[in-house]
């Protein structure tokens, strides 16, 4: 089995998958790409329908025996199953349900908000050629043009505030991690929220359990190793168009 991970700066979905790979000690070659420059759409990266139409937006691509795969949570599930390291998912079906519904919440509500705010603060320079998904191409154009909707920005800030409140509640019984043992839920939540401490500081103020949890995730050797791969001084400021904000509101 040959695995290659094409990843961007260790932030957002690239951070989730890099850290999952290191947690699991899976054997893979790493290829750095500049997601914010749209390199995923170039000839250098293998293409597939599931990558082109991934609703995660700009994220890493895991190629397994020639098959390109996308979507950070599911890539992490895959790595959890193939890598020799400790499990990144609970073993009991109900706890697995808890983890998957938590990740769905992050992916559907928090990631679009974080990407919206992150890209607004750090807009990409130009729209890349060859973006196959029409709606992703539209997000690129809007982001490069700095077209920011005030209502969406306010709603996105609310979503970050709500996410931190939810994490604070979740950890109120003194647990270290979101779902009992450390899991993909911690990685995915951290990866989208790490850059928000600077952009939505009020969300994190007076939430000591969340602050301690962020520090715990960051201190994990796998996360430290992923963050050390950054080529910029502040990877949490590197963003590319992400998932769209839910069309139903």
């Amino acid at each position, binding site marked *: 089995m040959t695995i290659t991970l094409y990843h961007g700066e260790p932030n957002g979905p690239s951070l989730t998958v890099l850290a999952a790979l290191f947690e699991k000690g899976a054997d893979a070659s790493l290829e750095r790409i500049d997601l914010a420059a749209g390199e995923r759409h170039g000839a250098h990266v293998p293409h597939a*329908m*599931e990558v082109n*139409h*991934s*609703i995660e937006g700009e994220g890493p691509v895991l190629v*397994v*025996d020639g*098959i390109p*795969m*996308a*979507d950070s949570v*599911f*890539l992490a*599930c*895959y790595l959890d*199953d*193939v890598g020799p390291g400790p499990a990144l998912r609970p073993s009991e*079906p*109900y706890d*697995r*349900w808890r983890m*998957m*519904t938590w990740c*769905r919440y992050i*992916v*559907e509500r928090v990631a679009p908000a974080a990407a919206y705010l992150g890209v607004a603060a750090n807009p990409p320079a130009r729209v890349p050629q060859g973006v196959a998904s*029409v*709606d992703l191409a539209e997000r690129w154009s809007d982001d490069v043009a700095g077209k920011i909707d005030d209502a969406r920005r306010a709603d996105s800030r609310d979503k970050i505030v709500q996410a931190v409140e939810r994490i604070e509640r979740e950890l109120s019984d003194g647990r270290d991690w979101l779902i009992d043992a450390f899991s993909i839920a911690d990685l995915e939540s951290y990866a989208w929220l790490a850059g928000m401490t600077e952009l939505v500081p009020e969300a994190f103020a007076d939430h000591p359990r969340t602050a301690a949890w962020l520090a715990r995730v960051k201190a994990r050797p796998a996360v430290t190793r992923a963050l050390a791969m950054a080529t910029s001084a502040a990877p949490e400021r590197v963003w590319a168009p992400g998932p769209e904000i*839910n*069309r*139903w*509101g």
Partner: protein
Amino acid sequence: MAETPSVTLYHWEPNANSGKPMLTLFEKGVAFDSHYLDLLNFDQHKPDYLAINPLGTIPAMTHGDLVLTESTAIMEYVDEAFPGPRLMPDSLVDAWRVRWWMKFMDQWLAPSFSMIGWSVFVGPSVRSRDPAELDAAIERIPLPERRIAWRKAISGAFSAEEMAESQRRVAVGIGLLEQALGQREWLASDSYSLADINGFNLAYALPLSQPHLSNDELTPNIMRWLRAIYARPATKSCWALGRTDMARRVTILEGEPA
């Protein structure tokens, strides 16, 4: 001997989000108590049900003392927690593809289907009722985004632009489904999986609702796939729980291509 904890599913018609865990339970052969909620009568926002699922979303499932929501996550739970045929493929890449398709359908394609469905069916079905009564019913909805959706559906306030974008996505989605089903027998793998159950509940009405985009000539693989799932005994048992025309016979899926 310990008593096996019982399963109750709170659901609407055997389609879309309700149909996903319903059909999964039937495919696994899990006995369950069916608790039908009439979505158009706002049963899902009444106190009895909010006591089970405070968010007021359908479906929900109880398994002994456990309460589970979110239809796709329930499907994975049912597959893992009960004996019966495995509905996730053995290949880990195929398992990834099952999850990819379920996310793509749940979060990208289904919202476009449902915008069209709500606009042509759900809105008109409830619009004729007393406005004050409707307003009170909407105020009882716990999730703000569902309140907005209901208001839009009832007032017919989806913009022409939103509807055109939904129609564009439906056309793209049909193209991608046809492409995937041209590559393998089932949507995500060579064995019947949760992705097929999810997809059937989204797409079984395609040849009726989008006949110009999905038919035996243009999308033979989608038609083959829908016919194969329609003919499964589990699908027939599942549809027997429907109470409206939504789960009436789809004659175009009975038998061979015209």
